[in-house]
């Protein structure tokens, strides 16, 4: 039975093994990693810069000087790491009577919670990206839902640093109605809109929307729309052109209900799998990690802190598109 401080290392090692096993399992369920750029960083303040169409590449006369590309055309932001965490308490009774089941359950449950909250915080970025300018995140913090251009994540009028042209990443259907329900028509329209995207210098830089991101409630509909041999819901023998174009359907159950309790199961999103991580950033100074017991309190509980440092930032956003599905 681990009772004295000399037993710290032994129990810590045991619980760390449980932590690592649980973390490994939780990482597999962490859907947000598939679309957010989850990177490790040493910076407390992450300096982000997007260059959305630097116009410099030009014809050069013989002997002439190459034009210098300037970062002035881009937008920048600075995102500061925040710390999140809690403590797992191993009581003297647990140790006295070797109740390892309880200790390991406390650790694995704590780890699981940490990763699920991180994942929910990422899902909330998408589901809060349509209205207002801030929202309350899953941790109770008020955070901005604006991209680096100062405009709400999903908008018909995103701006740039060079001129007054705008671009959209708010899904519409062929009739031009924004926020359509998940269906074949708006998928086709969004793909077309994204492919004809022009940078601020007027150069077409096609975004290839090849990923559909849906709530658990929309899983069946999404799969029928994409995977059917023919066009879903029609009696004809037409082929289903989007079958090979949507390469991945991400079913993210944390999109079903936002952390403020709002039913957001009709919301759906599309992304360009090659570039979406340029839009959605989540630099981690430290992923959820358990430390050795930090103190023996007057209660003789041993406290194992679990903490993480990360921040979420919304960058240059033509690579992720969204709809509330309201229309």
């Amino acid at each position, binding site marked *: 039975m681990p009772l004295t401080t000399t037993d710290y290392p032994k129990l810590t090692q045991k619980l760390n093994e449980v932590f690592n096993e649980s973390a490994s399992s939780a990482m597999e369920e962490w859907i947000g990693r598939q679309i957010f750029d989850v990177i490790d960083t040493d910076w407390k303040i992450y300096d982000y810069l997007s260059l959305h169409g630097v116009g410099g590449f030009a014809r050069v006369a013989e002997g002439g000087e190459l034009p210098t590309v300037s970062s002035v055309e881009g*937008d920048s932001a600075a995102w500061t790491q925040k710390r999140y965490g809690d403590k797992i308490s191993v009581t003297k009774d647990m140790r006295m009577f070797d109740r390892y089941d309880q200790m390991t359950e406390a650790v694995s449950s704590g780890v699981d919670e940490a990763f699920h909250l991180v994942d929910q915080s990422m899902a909330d970025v998408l589901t809060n990206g349509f209205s207002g300018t801030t929202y309350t995140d899953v941790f109770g913090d008020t955070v*901005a839902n604006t991209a680096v251009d*100062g*405009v709400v994540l999903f*908008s*018909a*009028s995103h701006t740039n640093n060079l001129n*007054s042209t705008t671009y959209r990443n708010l899904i519409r259907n062929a009739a031009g109605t924004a926020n359509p329900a998940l269906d074949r028509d708006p998928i086709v329209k969004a793909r077309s809109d994204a492919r004809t995207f022009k940078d601020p210098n007027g150069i077409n830089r096609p975004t290839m929307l090849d990923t559909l991101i849906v709530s658990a409630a929309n899983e069946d509909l999404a799969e029928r729309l994409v995977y059917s041999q023919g066009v879903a819901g029609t009696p004809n023998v037409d082929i289903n052109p989007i079958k090979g174009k949507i390469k991945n359907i991400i079913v993210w159950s944390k999109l079903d209900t936002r952390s403020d309790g709002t039913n957001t199961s009709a919301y759906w999103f599309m992304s360009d799998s090659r570039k979406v991580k340029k839009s959605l950033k989540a630099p981690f100074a430290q992923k959820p990690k358990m430390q050795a017991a930090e103190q023996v309190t007057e209660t003789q509980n041993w406290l194992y802190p679990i903490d993480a440092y990360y921040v979420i930032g919304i960058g240059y956003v033509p690579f992720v598109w969204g709809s509330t599905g309201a229309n």
Partner: protein
Amino acid sequence: MLNYANLVGQGRAKDIGIPWTPEENELLHLIVQERGMARVTVADYLRMGDIESLEDFDAVIKKGIIPQTREELEKEAKAKGVNFDEGTPDTVLAKHVGKAKEKKKPK
């Protein structure tokens, strides 16, 4: 934190730390598109408040109302005894100056 100095200077945010709401942003670009005016100019008009549609904007233009510069705003604030410093956002200062005006009306 976004680069608000840049965004505000280009009419892409309402004020330092205050983005346009989605509705304001859509209206701003609608006016830019429909009336062929520069984004920074339209932004100055929208920062005055009380413009919620293209028609509201046209009415303001028809009346010949011109958005105050920061200098003019500070001068009026001082005249009305409104306390502020250099960091006070334009929209916040304008709001307080506006309130100070309203208080004087009943007299």
